[in-house]
């Protein structure tokens, strides 16, 4: 199950400033250390925050990667809503949404 490694990479990026710098300078050189499938690999490189959400990345890990990639809070929430429209529900993990509409 490579969702584990997708989350592990993002967890380590969140914790480690020097890994972050290495990643944003040369993503492929960092990604070789993680067992990812093609879809996960592409979603991380793009980055496609909405797709990472659909693949099941825990929100507590993903929200920091989104911020790291320059997403403001409303953009981050919107990217997940758009991904729900595009891909259907979250495929794995704890962050399967209920109705995707939040408080609004």
């Amino acid at each position, binding site marked *: 199950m490579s969702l*584990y490694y997708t*989350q*592990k990479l993002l*967890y380590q990026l*969140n*914790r480690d400033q020097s890994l972050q710098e290495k990643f944003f300078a040369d993503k492929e050189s960092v990604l070789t250390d993680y067992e990812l499938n093609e879809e996960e690999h592409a979603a991380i490189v793009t980055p496609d925050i909405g797709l990472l*959400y659909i693949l099941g990345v*825990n*929100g*507590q*890990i*993903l*929200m*920091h990667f989104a*911020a*790291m990639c320059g997403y403001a*809070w409303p953009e981050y*929430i919107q990217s*997940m*809503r758009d991904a*729900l429209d595009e891909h259907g529900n979250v495929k794995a993990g*704890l*962050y399967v*949404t*209920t*109705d*995707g*509409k*939040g*408080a*609004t």
Partner: protein
Amino acid sequence: MSLVFAGICSHAPGITGRIHMADKDDARTLQSAMNEMRENLERAKPDALIVIAAEHFANFFMDNMPSYCMGMAGHYNGPIEDPQWLGIERTRIPGVPELSRRIITSIMQDIDLAYAEEWKFDHGIMVPLHHLTPRYDLPIIPANINCQGPPLTPLHRAYAFGQALGRACAEIPERIAIVGTGGISHWPATPDSGKINEAWDRDFLERWCDNDRDALLDYSDEQVYLDAGQGGFEIRNFIAVAGAAENSKGTVHYYRPIPIFAVGCTAATMAIA
């Protein structure tokens, strides 16, 4: 008897990070509730503060996930998040290794507890400290209950962890304060962020104030997930505080759903019996 303060409060990162997006009255009333909690804490004159916070993959990951862990480092650093994102500057927080070690050793009589001599604080601890010890001058002992990566510890073990903590505090001369952080119902970091189940929260707080063990443990994770979201799993922290102050009753000083902060913001304390 050296448990001198026991309380619970919210720790959502939006409380500090998105304060500029909040309604002024919401921000002001929450701030004054937290000020009041800080004054109560200071009046108790604690030697150290144990913060029971479900962290969010700052230190612990699914490669080796402890159900319960406490820190015994000389100092801690936080926040691990981007300071601008969280609205809290990076700082060094004092620890208290020898006292931490004594408490941890005592708890181990009842609970198989992990320990850590290194710990980066995330919003679960930093948001409460930002309000409760804004000068970072009170030694902190962090405690973590895994509420993020299932399988999760059962609620009755969270209560038992609290009881062991309360007993450990009773055995030592130091004056110890405990604050549990998190919850209550919320769907953080999802498209449902901002959804809050106020009725569920108020019912939980009633059970917490009554310190009714049976009622507090009468939840299944499946039902919590449906009624209170992933964030609802953090009731473990509040239940542990109830266990630590098991003969005490509580009072809710503040509860208000604030969607931009993604939680029903809460401040409550136990009157230590």
